[in-house]
């Protein structure tokens, strides 16, 4: 062999080895997210965009929610519950460090929970902590939480992003520079552009496969499509352009995963306002709604019809879609019985998301069939919250309720549905006092049936989660039991 050829071959082999090892070891990931979070502290804001970046990646709580919606241990490696159901004793993992090097101990847990439920707290989900009476540190790694009354949902509540454990040293600056205990550390935030997180070398748990992840903010549907196609973004866990999904499904470079979210999309009804205070009118509306037509027309066929306010992927879900099947004739009859043979006029206030704006047009057309003439009023989110949600100044609106397990809102006295049913309230109270899983599921089923029968709202569909990613990426969640992009199991296939 000539020396020059030998050199060439050796060089080629070396180059090949380098490239293949580089390919095998790909450890960076760029994700597209539609909205930029206002800040990065999940304990001080309701924006789902915060949890989409920090949940399970940067911050951890005592418990955490898994991809199937189950409650799992996190910073608490184990816990015990007293017989009266009032005292939880959490055992913390040993050797957990915050990203700034400080050690996690029971004092941090006491601080975090007390801070979240303090009078001047701006925690958006203060209700999660309402059952807590006292939090105390037994020793460095043991925390005792005493409740005012038994709360079946307590462990689940502690798994929310709003209940993550923060340190007193860094709590005030978490909005800008989040310091948690998670497997990733905050690296940088180019405002308006991207947030970057990097692997935490001192993580207490299983190390993650990715060295670096970048969350890029791309709100525009056309831009999101182009970014994926051009390879600028490797994954869009919540892809904002359902109309482009068939294009990706047909492309072997991409994997399209349609999952379920916690978003129950409803035609929310002002039950306190005539004529909607009449059960027959609400039943008429329920019969007049063709859910599949709305899903096809507004969501490009993506979404699951629902008949009550509960997520179909939940173990306690009851199929109630046929409580009031699509039947315009029956709807007209019910309207006539209620005293509106010629129908009536009402308003439909629609917030900005396309499920509401597009779905609203279809709902209005369907209700017009039975004589209910809706005036469509588009509103901004801020207006929606002020007028509809707070002041109850509305007849009908379309909105997706994305909080997990939130059927309890129907029991709230002052909620914007203005729904009052003593029997329902009793079921919910019993549920809150029950810790046994099977008993809880039975009560949840009962609750679903009551609000379905009462046709409190027009139940439309469960929002789908449209995930699109590079086919070589694995470990992203298919469903969204919480609004998170948990990257702990994400890796490039070799």
């Amino acid at each position: 062999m000539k020396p020059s050829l030998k050199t060439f071959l050796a060089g080629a082999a070396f180059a090949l080895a380098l490239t293949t090892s580089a390919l095998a070891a790909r450890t960076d990931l760029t994700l597209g997210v539609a909205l930029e979070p206002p800040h990065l502290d999940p304990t001080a804001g309701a924006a789902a965009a915060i949890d989409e970046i920090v949940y399970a990646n940067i911050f951890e709580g005592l418990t955490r929610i898994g991809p199937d919606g189950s409650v799992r241990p996190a910073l608490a490696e184990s816990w015990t519950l007293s017989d009266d159901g009032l005292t939880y004793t959490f055992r913390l993992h040993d050797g957990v460090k915050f990203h700034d090097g400080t050690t996690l101990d029971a004092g941090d847990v006491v601080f975090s929970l007390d801070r979240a439920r303090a009078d001047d707290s701006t925690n958006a989900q203060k209700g999660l902590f309402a059952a807590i009476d006292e939090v105390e540190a037994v020793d460095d790694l043991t925390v005792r939480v005493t409740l005012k009354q038994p709360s079946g949902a307590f462990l689940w509540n502690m798994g929310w992003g709003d209940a993550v454990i923060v340190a007193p040293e860094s709590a005030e600056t978490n909005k800008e520079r989040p310091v948690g205990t998670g497997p990733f550390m905050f690296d940088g935030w180019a405002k308006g552009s991207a947030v970057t997180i990097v692997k935490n070398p001192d993580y207490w748990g299983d190390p993650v496969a990715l060295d670096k992840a970048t969350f890029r903010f791309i709100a525009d549907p056309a831009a999101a499509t182009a970014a994926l196609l051009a390879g600028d973004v490797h994954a869009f866990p919540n892809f904002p352009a359902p109309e482009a999904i068939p294009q990706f499904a047909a492309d072997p470079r991409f994997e399209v995963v349609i999952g379920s979210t916690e978003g129950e999309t409803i035609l929310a009804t002002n039950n306190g306002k005539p004529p909607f205070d009449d059960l027959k009118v609400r039943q008429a509306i329920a019969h007049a709604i063709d859910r599949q037509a709305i899903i096809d027309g507004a969501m490009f066929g993506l979404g699951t019809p629902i008949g009550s306010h509960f997520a179909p992927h939940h173990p306690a879900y009851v199929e109630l879609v046929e409580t009031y099947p699509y039947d315009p004739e029956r709807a007209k009859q019910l309207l006539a019985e209620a005293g509106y043979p010629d129908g009536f006029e009402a308003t439909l206030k629609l917030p900005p998301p396309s499920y509401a704006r597009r779905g609203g047009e279809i709902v209005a057309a369907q209700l017009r069939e039975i004589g209910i003439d809706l005036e469509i009023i588009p509103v901004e989110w801020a207006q929606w919250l002020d007028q509809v949600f707070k002041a109850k100044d509305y007849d009908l609106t379309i909105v997706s309720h994305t909080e997990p397990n939130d059927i309890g809102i129907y029991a709230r006295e002052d909620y914007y549905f203005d729904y009052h049913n003593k029997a329902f309230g009793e079921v919910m109270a019993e549920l809150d006092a029950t810790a046994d899983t099977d008993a809880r599921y039975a009560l949840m089923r009962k609750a679903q049936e009551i609000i379905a029968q009462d046709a409190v709202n027009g139940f439309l569909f469960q929002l789908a989660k449209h995930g699109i990613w590079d086919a070589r990426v694995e470990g992203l969640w298919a469903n969204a039991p919480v609004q998170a992009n948990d990257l702990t199991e994400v890796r490039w296939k070799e």
Partner: protein
Amino acid sequence: MLSYLLRRTVIVLVTLFAASVVVFAVLEIVPGDPARLMLGMNATEDAIDALRRQMGLDEPVIVRYFTWIGGMLTGDFGRSYTYSVPVIDLVRERLVVSLPLALMALALSTAIAIPVGIFSAARRGAAADAGIMAATQLGIAIPNFWFAILLVYLFAVTLRLVPAGGFPGWQSGLWPGLQSLLLPAIALALPQAAILARVTRSSLLDVLGEDYIRTARAKGLPAGLVLRHHALRNALIPVLTILGLQFAFLLAGTIIIENVFYLPGLGRLVFQAITQRDLIVVESVVLLLVATVVIVNFLVDLAYAWADPRLRRR
């Protein structure tokens, strides 16, 4: 000239004051509580009240106006409700994207439009002129976001020459920065160039019809010299007006383009701030844009006065 300057300056100041009152009043009237929006549907009333106090929203309107405007005058633009960082920092971060983008687009459109306009005017009625007029008509009619999407699909998705969007930041180098601004600048520049070319052409044709041009020609000056020396400077006045307006438009009106290319620019900041009810950001940035427009117009007026001495005496 001095009294002209003084008069113009007073007008600028009055305009800015009026604008600040209008901007503030309009945003105060628009319904929507920023605190409630930030904390969302499940928030309790006392959490919302606590946040309102933190953001200073519990103060009377008049106090807040003077705090805001007083701050603006001393360079303190307040603190963003949502990002909770000083507004001036946000604006500065965004300007390093929006300003080069606007300038690139402006330079590009001028570089295309003026020669094209002159060329077209010099060949009035010829086939080339008709072709250019048709092309500019098309350029005006095509929405720039649509054109932007076409550019992305051609150069980023199909040819993979440039990224589909985003901005790497100037710290990653001049070339990557410029590269990511190139397509947006083209998308912004072409419709502007079309307008500018038409204005240049018609303004030049108007001037070429004037008596002094006929005189110059009658003296036997070559056509090129007449065009360059006698016609062009006078024809520039309407062109300057359009340029001034375009600069303001480019700076404020890049919202759509910045969305298509997900650029972290000023337009997107305002858009985001409006949807999040980040009032202080909207108020400050809008006032800043108004000030820019007013000042650019002021400079354009001065440029007129330079181009046409008769205007100074008015």
